[in-house]
């Protein structure tokens, strides 16, 4: 019973992802594109929850859906009028885009479907507890991630300074 519910939720989430990601790149109103992007990000967080990475799902919701989409909406409202439609795409450009997307997708899907992943079963390890994740994030041994963590913090500081420098009025 629980498996059936899991499968139904999976297909709902993947339908949301496929439909909304295609709408996000084809919608001519940019604010709607940002809203479809929000739905895609929420459904991705749903995937993470379904794969038992609950911490990652929470991070996805807070940073992507909470932070980035709000930034997008602010920037869109600052730079375009409400209800403004973008110009029609010329057919040659659409043709090149479709060619790139469809040929790339066909190549990738062919490779993925013919490749045999060795233990492609869901390993019922369940969720990692938060304590183990915290120790791995802060440790200095093998398979522990203190250095990238500190590099990210320096990157964020650089981003704050750079954002202020670029966007301030002169």
């Amino acid at each position, binding site marked *: 019973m629980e498996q059936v519910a*899991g*499968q139904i939720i999976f297909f709902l989430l*993947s339908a949301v*992802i*496929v439909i909304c*990601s*295609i709408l*996000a*790149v084809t919608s001519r109103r*940019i604010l709607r594109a*940002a809203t479809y*992007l929000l739905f*895609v990000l929420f459904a*991705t967080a749903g*995937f*993470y929850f*379904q*794969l038992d990475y609950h911490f*990652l799902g929470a*991070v*996805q919701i807070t*940073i*992507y859906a909470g*932070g*980035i989409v709000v*930034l*997008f909406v*602010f*920037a869109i409202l*600052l*730079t*375009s009028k409400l209800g403004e439609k*973008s110009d029609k*795409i010329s057919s040659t*450009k659409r043709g090149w*885009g479709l060619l*790139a*997307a469809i040929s*790339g*997708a066909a190549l*990738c899907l062919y490779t*993925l*479907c013919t490749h045999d*992943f060795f*233990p*492609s*079963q*869901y*390993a019922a*390890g369940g969720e*990692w507890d938060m304590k183990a994740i915290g120790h*791995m994030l802060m440790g200095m041994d093998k*398979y522990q*991630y203190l250095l990238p963590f500190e590099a*990210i913090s320096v990157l*964020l500081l650089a*981003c704050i300074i750079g*954002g202020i420098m*670029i*966007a301030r009025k002169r």
Partner: protein
Amino acid sequence: MEIPMIYYVVVSTIMFFAGVYGFVTRKNLLAILISLELMLNAVDINFVVFNRYLFPGQLEGFFFTLFAVAIAAAETAIAIAIIINIYRNIKNIKVDNLDKMKY
């Protein structure tokens, strides 16, 4: 949880190439950035799914995704600052109008 791994990978492939299509065809800089976010997100799904299905005893894909989300947030903030600066200078954010510094 009897969902094969290939289903997740197919969904993320479709999402990635929707992003590629938008990146090629869009003219608005913010729309290009939205397509970029779609591509980054598809790659994140791949990392997590491969981590869970192929190497469930380790957390490499998990941490890659965590750091990729952080870097994507930083990159988006800087990109939006640049776009707003461009808008302030030329009152437009269409890519075909951005040829001031080209020659």
